[in-house]
């Protein structure tokens, strides 16, 4: 019984004190209330809230402030739709601006554990920057993805995963914020137009023979893609094929002809999408996504 009374007294004391302090704080909060810009809250509600930093500001809240002060345009956030940008422009009174071209991250390596060999086995801390100091990584190719996933940790949208020792981007989830580009110590990640259908999964600057010896899928700079591209969109730079996306129409001939399978579809699939019929350009219904809007009819996909 004594214990029970004790507990009651304690609850009484605590409750009383908490009540007094609570009342004091409520009064103080009325007294010191800060008027916040309602527009900022509305804009923050429209923003994704991931604080990825892709817009160049510290987070969604500071970007909202920058838009309100007229410092930033409303279209810097890559994950907004055109309607949301218009809504933000309306709230902030800024000029309506078009959605910038959507981009996705692209990892320029496909040297998975199966197609390349290791120089040694690493047992250190789980961080690409630490592994890169030991001879440029455990894989034989110094241009290869390290696969410890610094980009995975950097991605706030959960769009990157490491499969078979190589990071892979889920293009559906990727918002093109560019956090991973900065996180990769080998600078293997670049932002490409979201509409790009094929890309080169290699960035090796080695000569073809050297690449052939260490990687089954690396670009050997044979130039077959350059010769076969109907739009001359592919060039060889530093012993590696590079696609100019302003010329590429996504026909996929390069992926089909590539002897090493380095050029692949960005939409997944182990091998490139093979089209038996020649690529047909069809007009897409008017979209705001700009010059890269195209569609290719593929009769079959593997």
């Amino acid at each position, binding site marked *: 019984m004594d214990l029970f009374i004790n507990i009651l*007294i*304690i609850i009484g*004391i*605590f409750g009383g*004190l*908490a009540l007094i*302090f609570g009342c*004091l*704080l409520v009064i*103080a*909060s009325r007294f*010191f*209330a*800060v008027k916040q810009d309602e527009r900022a809250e509305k804009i923050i509600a429209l923003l994704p809230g991931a604080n990825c930093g892709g817009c160049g500001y510290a987070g969604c809240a500071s970007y909202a402030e920058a838009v309100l002060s007229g410092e930033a345009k409303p279209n810097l956030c890559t994950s907004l739709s055109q309607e949301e940008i218009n809504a933000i422009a309306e709230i902030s009174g800024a000029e309506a601006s078009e959605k910038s071209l959507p981009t996705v991250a692209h990892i320029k390596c496909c040297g998975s554990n199966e197609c390349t060999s290791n120089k040694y086995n690493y047992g250190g801390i789980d961080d690409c920057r630490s592994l890169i100091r030991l001879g440029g990584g455990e894989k034989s190719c110094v241009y290869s993805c390290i696969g410890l996933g610094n980009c995975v940790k950097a991605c706030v949208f959960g769009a990157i995963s490491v499969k078979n020792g190589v990071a892979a981007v889920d293009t559906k989830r990727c918002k093109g914020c560019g956090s991973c580009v900065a996180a990769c110590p080998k600078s293997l990640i670049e932002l490409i137009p979201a509409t790009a259908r094929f890309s080169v999964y290699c960035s090796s600057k080695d000569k073809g023979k050297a690449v052939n010896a260490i990687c089954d899928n690396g670009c050997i700079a044979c130039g077959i893609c350059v010769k076969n591209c109907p739009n001359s969109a592919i060039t060889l730079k530093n012993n590696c094929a590079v696609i100019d996306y302003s010329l590429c129409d996504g026909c996929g001939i390069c992926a089909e002809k590539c002897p090493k399978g380095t050029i692949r579809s960005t939409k997944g699939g182990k091998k490139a999408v093979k089209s038996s019929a020649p690529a047909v350009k069809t007009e897409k219904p008017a979209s705001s996504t700009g010059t890269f809007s195209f569609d290719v009819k593929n009769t079959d996909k593997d």
Partner: protein
Amino acid sequence: MGTIISICFAAILTENFVLSKFMGICAFLGVSKKTDTSIGMGMAVTFVMTISTLVTWLINRYILVPFDFVYLRTIVFILVIACLVQLIEMFLRKCVPSLYKALGIYLPLITTNCAVLGVTILMADSDYTNILYPVIYAFAAGLGFTLAIVLFSGIREKLKFCDIPKPFRGFPIALIAAALLAMAFSGFQGLNLPF
């Protein structure tokens, strides 16, 4: 009067909370990069220390001791401190938003600043029967914290222009400077005013 002066002397110099009791190091190292913000931090800590000592001393003496609940002291004191920190946070946000931004996370962290809890518990344990002395001691301890953090921020501002060996740049040299400052303060140890 003599007692008050000797209390102040002890709390500011000989028993400096940061440099001889090693309490409140987190804020001491965290907000000492600029003199302006460190003065603000010192003021905030002084305010919280003084008021919380006043309130907790009364609570301890007139509620906890008579009911024999002294073992609940820590949690009650933290409640008081947290409430005061909330108050000062609102005040700064309204009146000095630049300081509010500069203090950042360290402002709410005053709640867990052990120097504040240290002062309140030390005063609750002391055998002062007059409320005046604990409050003066707490105020002086706050001033001591302010003194330490302002001195240290001055040193850190100068450190920016020094040619420091690479491994020591940034935090390591700050820790070494803090240690040297603490050693300098240890010179006050054993000084007793003739009151």
